[in-house]
């Protein structure tokens, strides 16, 4: 852990550990409270494995009432709580705190209601993303957001992170596919938002909760929209001699009114790593590779594949292959989906970054990234959700070499600054967590951040839920609450602005 500061541990809480454990056992009986270090080891990190911390104690409640009582107890006793789903966060969102209760929601693992008439599934938060699709696919339905960790990640975690996936341009992010929630505030109050109807009433608390990284409330039930699977899906694999021509091709596809189900780009290092690993038949002479997937009725897909191929030719593609079978389509994707482990084979370690940029800035960003690569002395491979501008640079390093992790982190920070500089954002889908927390100032000024914290203060003014994540500095809500206005200063309507 290179220089990451977490909130100072509360000595009083640490010294009362035994008492806290037994109080929690009174709420969650049996094996639902884990305090042995060997058993807690499984919870000391999430998918951002560079950071580790033993929690005070792990609690696995099974009922909403238990969640409510645990939170109320922690609220009354000033104990921090870190909620955790499947632990697949790439930004350290579930990193434990030494003086905090780690609240695992993975015993909430049942699908509660499948309602095909309303195209809605009501589920507990510990059900995996893919588990929802599995529960409805025999009727031809699926849940659209598909983060690459979908086999393992929980829907509760998807809410916390507003997870995306490769199909988000056409089908939206988690926030566009959630209809309702049940949540428990740190005070133990249970609140329901939305339901099977569209448009939740009042302030859009669903929007604030989705992507709130476990800082606002603990989700105990989720209602999502399901869709009927498209009749068919086919992909075309197109190679280009430059990333500029690939970028122009992407812009022209969108300009032609086509919204592909997925549109992915890989650069030369990523193409080579993936091809060596899965032998998908990627063109090794290409500087940039596009995978464009169209889905829908066959008549539509055939029509659009023709258009996409013509656009690719106009932009000077060096190779073009259209999938003719489901197996071939799967092969096209196999390389892209294995890009991370493929890069893992050519380097002992890698850091996966997650900025989003305006599509048009891609050539500039790729070229400046090569300069940064030289500056930091580390290699980088790029995979890019070209449809929505989400860029995943993979920085290759060796943690066993002195200083390489620090160099990789500095390189990553430079890339994210570059993303913000060209009009993009720090994180497209992995979340801020602890990883990008200290970079928030690159995108937001103090007043921007204060307004985000005010949401936190409305939900959890004692800041007990997941502190140390998202915000670079913790301000007490009372301090934040002061109004700084010049008493009585009048906005004179006679000055030219008015």
């Amino acid at each position, binding site marked *: 852990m290179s220089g990451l500061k977490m909130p100072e541990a509360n000595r009083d809480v640490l010294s009362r550990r035994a008492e806290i454990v037994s109080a929690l056992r009174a709420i969650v009986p049996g094996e639902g409270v884990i305090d042995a270090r060997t058993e807690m080891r499984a919870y000391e990190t999430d998918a951002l494995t560079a950071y580790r911390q033993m929690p005070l104690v792990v609690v696995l409640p099974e009922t909403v009432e238990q969640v409510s009582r645990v939170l109320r107890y922690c609220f009354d006793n000033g104990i921090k709580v870190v909620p955790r789903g499947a632990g697949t966060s790439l930004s350290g969102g579930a990193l434990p705190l030494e003086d905090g209760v780690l609240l695992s929601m993975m015993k909430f693992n049942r699908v509660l209601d499948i309602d095909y008439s309303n195209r809605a599934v009501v589920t507990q938060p510990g059900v995996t993303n893919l588990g929802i699709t599995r529960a409805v696919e025999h009727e031809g339905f699926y849940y659209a957001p598909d983060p690459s960790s979908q086999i393992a990640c929980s829907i509760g975690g998807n809410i916390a992170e507003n997870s995306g996936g490769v199909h988000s341009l056409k089908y939206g992010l988690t926030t566009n596919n959630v209809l309702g929630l049940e949540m428990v505030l740190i005070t133990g109050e249970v609140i329901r938002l939305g339901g099977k109807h569209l*448009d939740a*009433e009042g302030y859009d608390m669903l929007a604030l909760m989705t992507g709130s990284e476990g800082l606002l409330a603990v989700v105990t039930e989720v209602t999502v929209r399901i869709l009927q699977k498209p009749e068919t899906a086919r992909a075309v694999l197109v190679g280009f001699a430059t990333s500029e021509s690939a970028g122009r091709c992407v812009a022209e596809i969108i300009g032609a009114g086509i919204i592909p189900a997925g549109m992915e780009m890989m650069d030369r290092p990523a193409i080579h790593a993936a091809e060596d690993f899965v032998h998908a038949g990627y063109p090794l002479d290409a500087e940039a590779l596009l995978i464009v997937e169209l889905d829908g009725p066959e008549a539509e897909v055939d029509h659009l594949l023709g258009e996409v191929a013509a656009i690719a030719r106009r932009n000077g593609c060096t190779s073009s292959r259209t999938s003719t079978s489901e197996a071939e389509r799967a092969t096209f994707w196999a390389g892209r989906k294995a890009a991370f482990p493929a890069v893992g084979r050519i380097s002992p370690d890698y850091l996966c970054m997650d900025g989003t940029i305006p599509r048009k800035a891609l050539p500039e960003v790729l070229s400046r990234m090569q300069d940064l690569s030289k500056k930091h002395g580390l290699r980088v491979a790029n995979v890019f959700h070209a449809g929505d501008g989400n860029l995943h640079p993979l920085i290759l390093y060796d943690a066993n070499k002195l200083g390489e992790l620090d160099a990789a982190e500095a390189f990553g920070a430079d890339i994210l600054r570059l993303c913000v500089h060209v009009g993009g954002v720090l994180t497209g889908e992995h979340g801020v967590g602890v990883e990008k927390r200290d970079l928030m100032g690159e995108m937001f000024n103090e007043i921007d951040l204060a307004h985000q914290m005010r949401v936190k203060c409305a939900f959890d003014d004692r800041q007990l839920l997941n502190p140390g994540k998202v915000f670079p500095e913790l301000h007490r809500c009372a301090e934040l*609450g002061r109004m700084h206005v010049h008493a009585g200063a009048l906005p*004179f309507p006679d000055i030219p602005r008015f």
Partner: protein
Amino acid sequence: MTAPGPGPAPDRHFRPLDADGVREVVAWAAAEGQPLEVIGTGSKRALGRPVQAAHVLDLSAISGVEAYEPAELVITAKAATPLAEVEALLAGADQEFAFEPMDYGPLLGLEPGRGTLGGMLATNLSGPKRLKHGAARDHVLGIHAVSGRGEIFKSGGTVVKNVTGYDLSRGLAGSWGTLAVTTSLSLKVLPAPQTEASVLIEGLEDDEAADALCRAMGTSAEASSAAHLPQGIGSRLAVDGLSLDRPATLIRLEGFAPSVDYRFEALAHLMKPLGPVTRLEAEPSRALWRAVRDVRPFCSDAAPVWRVSVAPASGSDFVATLRENCEADAFYDWSGGLVWLSMPDGDAHAAEVRFAVSQVGGGHATLVRADAATRANLAVFEPQGAALAALGHRLKAQFDPVGILNPGRMLAGA
């Protein structure tokens, strides 16, 4: 306008020219505890509860498109930019707001086309295509705003995929200007469909139609709208060349021509056993959905109108339950999930409407048309449970601690 002197502030009409001017007005109002009614063009003043504020913060000068690059699928414009102007600009590039923001003008007795982008977000507008594409809140990418603290802040950005910090942009959707004054917005746009057609099935009862629409939505036909107009509603649509004298169940298909044709055949085949099926081509289809969008059947009188959101399959049960207790004209959008009600005897029948919502598994009802006295004395929006209402009050207190932004708009005394 003249420079105000000392003493109690007389009613003022502030019309700042930029975000900094807005900040100055709000900061003054916060310091002095002077409530403001925030308006763009005032086209939605008759919606929601009447605001209790002496002064007006008029944003109409904060107007104009700031950036639009069709290939990036995003437009950024100042808050009071007319929606009609933006839609015309998008149409010129064969793009659109896919959520099809409705125009409340005709229903409220105003001329159409007066709304602004800021008002669209503040009231979270949508239309028939909300069923497939979501509402304004699903398309907002970023905002600049002035909170009730008189501070300028931004949230989000101009890219589709962004999870950097809390989603305040979406959080302001449907907040009716009570948390912050938006000065600029970035919104996602999409290619306009090449063509469209609608499946029309005639003669279905409400419950049969509900069933048919839910079945259609459960297929891979990707319908973008689904509505049912009971007997006596279709004839009040006022769409040229289209006479719907019998109950009309409608499903809309959009996209590339070969795809629309194929999906039309698939749905027509599925629906044939239910009743006669006809195809509405692009022109009449567009006109029809526009009329449904703007609630044209209820625009010709002044009876109280409710907008009710329930689970799609429960729409017809809701209306049946309501009619056990009072008279109501009704039609259905969003596959049955959006019920427009007109109360013919002139009474809003709020208790009956809310009771019926509670009987079908929940949802919410908003009184969108009634005289000001009725809207001031009734809960216009669906009352919330104690814990959620308290959370809403805390959020309001964080963003507008003095309570100067549109007081009373959503709730009495808040």
